[in-house]
């Protein structure tokens, strides 16, 4: 047991670092850059029942300390993911992977998760009820406790793998939704997904994003993410995967103090492909600086103000 090891829903991880879904593809692009087996795990590209092209381009907008994306769940569909992507993934990554799943109906979620349940390499199912890019889709599930709970129950019924529900931050009461998922049997909560944001091109006077709005991520959203991780971690009794603007080892420690058992790194992978490698390498020194022997000692360790 190293000082970075954590246990997420019964699965041991060498460290808490998890590249977030949608910023790491199925791993190969990064495997060309560094050995991705140093990661705790990674959450692969959001997968749906049917293949999707996603939204029209432009899908990307620059922001202060962040970016907006409106990819819209582009993926080949779960059958192709299992037939073509997972075998390739297996070649460059030898640990349990986190399968990120989205859907547009309860049946979609159940169908996709049932198929992924048979895949040995899939360690966790990360059920995304929060993608803000699909009209009438994922978003609506993530903004209502009942709908989020319904998705959770449907997925739990078809899998024995740990189910982690990824929540949207674009809500009034994130705690109510997290609790509903916990009561519905979720094994963990992952948060936050992107904030709904927008930019306008002053030259063309059109939204920069063809889809008008998109998901805002990057260091700018860290304080909102940390707040929600803190609120949820103090309200539920299941592990929390914290993410949102994490870009340094210090951010990881702050997220874990707030209550995160593992930490997702998203947008930073896109601007610095070595981000997760550097964070993992920098963690021990950062832990020494703040007198942390073992990361497990600080999970939820924030003191009262």
């Amino acid at each position, binding site marked *: 047991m190293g000082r970075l090891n954590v246990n997420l829903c019964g699965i041991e991880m060498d460290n808490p670092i998890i590249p977030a879904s*949608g*910023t*790491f*593809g199925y791993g190969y*692009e*990064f495997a060309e*850059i560094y050995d991705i087996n140093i990661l705790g795990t990674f959450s692969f*590209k959001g997968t749906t029942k049917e293949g999707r*092209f*996603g939204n*029209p*381009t*432009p*899908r*990307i*907008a*620059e*922001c*202060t*300390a*962040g*970016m907006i*994306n409106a*990819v819209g769940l*582009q993926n080949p569909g779960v059958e192709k993911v299992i037939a073509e992507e997972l075998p390739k993934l297996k070649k460059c990554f030898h640990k349990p992977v986190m399968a990120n799943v989205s859907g547009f109906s309860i049946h979609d979620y159940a169908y996709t998760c049932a198929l992924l349940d048979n895949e040995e390499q899939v360690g966790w199912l990360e059920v995304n009820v929060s993608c803000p890019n699909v009209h009438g889709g994922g978003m609506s599930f993530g903004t209502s406790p009942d709908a989020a709970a319904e998705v959770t129950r449907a997925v739990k019924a078809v899998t024995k793998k740990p189910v982690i529900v990824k929540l949207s931050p674009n809500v009034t009461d994130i705690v109510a939704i997290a609790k509903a998922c916990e009561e519905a049997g979720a094994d963990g909560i992952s948060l936050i997904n992107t904030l709904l944001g927008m930019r306008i091109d002053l030259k063309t006077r059109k939204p*920069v994003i063809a889809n008008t709005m998109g998901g805002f991520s*990057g*260091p700018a959203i860290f304080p909102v993410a940390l707040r929600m991780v803190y609120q949820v971690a103090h309200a539920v009794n299941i592990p929390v995967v914290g993410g949102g603007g994490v870009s340094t080892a210090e951010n990881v420690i702050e997220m874990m103090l707030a209550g995160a058992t593992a930490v997702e790194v998203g*947008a930073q*992978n*896109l*601007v*610095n*492909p070595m981000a997760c490698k550097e964070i993992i390498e920098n963690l021990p020194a950062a832990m020494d600086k703040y007198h942390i022997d073992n990361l497990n000692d600080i999970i939820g360790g924030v003191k009262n103000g």
Partner: protein
Amino acid sequence: MTLRGDTLAIKNAGEFVNLKIDGFYLRRPISVCDVEGDVLTLIYKVVGGGTEAMSAMEKGTELLVMTGLGNGYDLSVAGESPLLIGGGVGVPPMYLLARRLLALGKRVTVILGFNTADEVFYEDEFKALGCDVKVTTVDGSHGIKGFVTDALPEEYSYFYTCGPMPMFRALFKATSTSGQFSFEERMGCGFGACMGCSCKTVTGYKRICKDGPVLKKEEIIWAD
């Protein structure tokens, strides 16, 4: 701008590099104009804050640059007399391409299209390489009056192009041979991870940054 550093990852003409610029979150992709030893030449137009910041950089500034990005042009199908067509900001990548084709002993014809005389650049550089160079300006203030399609030669074995979409659509119709188009798109990562710059092609979905930026004439689907 010219940069000095490790350029070994840059293989083909038509590739791009991705620059980290202080004060901006996303990197800025810029097509490779030329590379010689450890010297990388980039020519860009100031279109926004990022390129504005680049033009304000002082000599000696160090930049984080991801190199060897994109597929680049495929020279194996050039034939004996390839035609290169660069429109405005699409001119720079034609330079390294011309050099590489000439090195293979090809007869290279280059058409450079601009709006007006003030915008014309690199005409002499291409001539110095030994290309047959034609320049068009929309207002006729320099070279042939009109669009690059007004300067197409009778005979050419294949074509390579980079430039704005309207020019691409016109070339797609006006060209008699096959060819390769280098596309531009807003990118997230620039190395294929984020699916931010995907497009539909005859051969399926492609990422401009990884499977592109160069697409073959036959696989292009024109969005309406």
